[in-house]
């Protein structure tokens, strides 16, 4: 294949629509680009300051020396801001036709009709479609795109912005802090339980375009929210960069679940920093699925700062031709009686590479911590690769930490059994793979689980067919 651009010809969501942008910042990154973004958005002064400071940090930081290979990223060849339409559409019909068609193709309206209540659809760098059920607004739940959040609740945003993921955390967090646009802002007031998941769709749709969304979720005491983020990007021939930052604050006794299914096209670098601070008796659950992208580096983390806080990370990754999924999770036990679990399932096929990378850290004084890590990997063929890089740092003796991992291939007996019952090799393999990842998939909302099953079948056709 030319230039190492790897796109299966039958890539299901591999369509792109003609670009119709109102504003496109010029390629490359500089102080003036950042200032331009900030003034386009009419931001308060402090945010502009933060952006410029973050830009300096970005320039001063080196690329990470560990993890996946990022050599091909050319920061000068990326658009850092594109604004698709002037104002936000209030209803579906108001959206431009092309954008509507794109969404129709991945089935948002159907999904919404059924049981999705709020949708923030991110097409390019701006949230363009926003609907929200009135009942939640009455309860005081805020669910906005980040720009609107900043405009309408500047104090709240200022209080939390960059507190979980400071710009200096890593090079890509700095990049995001400098050029972020779009993303979601969620605030759930004390004691409010949002029963239906809040949902956002993210897409990249311009060649060479970076997507730098920023998400901030604050779940106040005793509240509950589930947030779902799904990505499905069209195919382009030039490498794209996706560097998002997600910050979550789970207050006392609150619970938050954050679900991602990432299906970027296989030329996207997906480098995301996700972190949650969990206070006393709070629970944070990350459900993180990585199906697409050329290279992912993503380690959702829970900083368990309050007593009896709990963190769970369910990670699912799949790597095919030309892909490297370097994903996992991080649990930081910073208070007594905290507990956590990481379950990782990875599948590599068609010369893909999956790496689980995880950190479990217990500080001195965090007594009675319980933590269990389990990672299983499936390798489907001889050209593929699977790694496990777990790290445990335990500074407290009164703890219970365990880690377990296995690497296996598809069991020939199972395959034979299924095929003797009349299934084709592809069907049988998909069935086994679906069974293997089931512990993670069963935590997904139905429509995602269905889509995932289809995607796996599709991948298996590539792998075997």
């Amino acid at each position: 294949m030319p230039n190492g651009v790897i796109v299966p010809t039958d890539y299901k969501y591999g369509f792109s629509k003609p670009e119709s942008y109102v504003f496109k910042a010029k390629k490359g990154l500089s102080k003036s680009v950042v200032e331009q973004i900030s003034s386009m958005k009419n931001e308060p002064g402090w945010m502009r300051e933060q952006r410029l400071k973050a830009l300096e940090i970005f320039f001063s930081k080196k690329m990470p020396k560990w993890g996946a290979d990022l050599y091909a990223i050319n920061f000068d060849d990326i658009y850092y801001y594109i604004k698709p339409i002037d104002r936000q559409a209030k209803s579906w019909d108001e959206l431009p036709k092309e954008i509507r068609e794109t969404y129709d193709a991945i089935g948002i309206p159907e999904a919404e009709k059924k049981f999705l209540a709020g949708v923030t659809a991110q097409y390019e760098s701006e949230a363009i479609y926003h609907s929200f059920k009135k009942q939640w607004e009455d309860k005081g739940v805020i669910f906005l795109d980040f720009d609107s959040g900043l405009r309408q609740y500047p104090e709240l945003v200022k209080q939390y912005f960059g507190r979980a993921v400071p710009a200096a955390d890593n090079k890509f967090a700095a990049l995001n802090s400098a050029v972020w646009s779009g993303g979601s802002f969620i605030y759930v007031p004390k004691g409010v339980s949002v029963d239906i998941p809040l949902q956002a769709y993210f897409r990249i749709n311009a060649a060479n375009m970076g997507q730098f969304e920023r998400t901030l979720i604050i779940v106040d005491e005793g509240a509950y929210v589930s947030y779902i983020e799904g990505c499905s990007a069209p195919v382009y021939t030039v490498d794209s960069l996706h560097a998002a930052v997600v910050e979550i604050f789970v207050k006392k006794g609150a619970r938050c679940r954050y679900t991602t299914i990432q299906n970027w096209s296989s030329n996207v670098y997906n480098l995301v920093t996700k972190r949650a601070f969990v206070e006393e008796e709070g629970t944070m659950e990350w459900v993180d699925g990585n199906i697409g992208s050329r290279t992912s580096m993503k380690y959702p983390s829970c900083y368990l700062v309050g007593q009896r806080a709990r963190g769970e990370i369910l990670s699912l990754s799949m790597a095919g031709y030309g892909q490297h999924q370097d994903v996992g999770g991080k649990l930081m036990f910073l208070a007594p009686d905290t507990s956590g679990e990481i379950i990782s399932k990875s599948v590599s096929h068609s010369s893909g590479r999956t790496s689980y990378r995880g950190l479990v850290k217990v500080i001195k004084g965090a007594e009675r911590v319980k933590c269990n890590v389990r990672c299983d990997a499936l390798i489907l063929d001889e050209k593929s690769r699977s790694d496990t890089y777990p790290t445990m740092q335990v500074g407290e003796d009164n703890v219970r930490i365990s880690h377990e991992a296995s690497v296996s291939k598809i069991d020939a007996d199972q395959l034979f059994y299924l095929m003797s019952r009349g299934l084709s090799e592809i069907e049988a393999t998909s069935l086994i793979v679906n069974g293997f990842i089931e512990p993670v998939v069963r935590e997904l909302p139905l429509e995602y689980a269905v889509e995932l099953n289809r995607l796996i079948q599709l991948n298996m056709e590539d792998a075997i067919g």
Partner: protein
Amino acid sequence: MIIIDKNQVKLILILLGSSRQARTINNRLEVVLAGENASIEVVGLVLGKGDESRALEAYITHAAPNTKSNVKVRAVLRDKSTFAFRGNVRIERGAKGADAYLRSDALLFDESKMSDDSPALEILEPEVKAGHAATIGKVDEQMLFYLMSRGLSRSRSEKLLIQGFINPLLEKLKLASKSKVKSFEF
């Protein structure tokens, strides 16, 4: 680097913690299973007390078919001692039928620390069996309770449990020192 050739079977024993040794010891073990049916077993026993800081690194590479590796490390840490274990098992493409297992268990007491425990796997070949596991923690409170309910003191019960924890490895060490298998004592 230790290279294990075809059909060779080797046992490497590592004992970190006898009183004769210097306080800070760093050990790095590199093994390449270079020939078919080569097999390596690494048994490591680590005892730490006082302010000792111990480290062990084990890098095993499976470069040939039907090779086997089994790394077992157990550590008992007391007082302010710390232990860091880094293990990496790599199975190269073509090393069909390789069988690798990497395991580390640590018992912590007092203010001891497992400063780093990274048992990594890099698998480039699907026709293999590979696994790793690690545990870090105190002695099991329930077992302790059981023993104490039978009239043993807390420290006596703890000692029994520690013995139970290290005995399987200790037996190997004893056995090996009598036989002709090469044993390394650091």
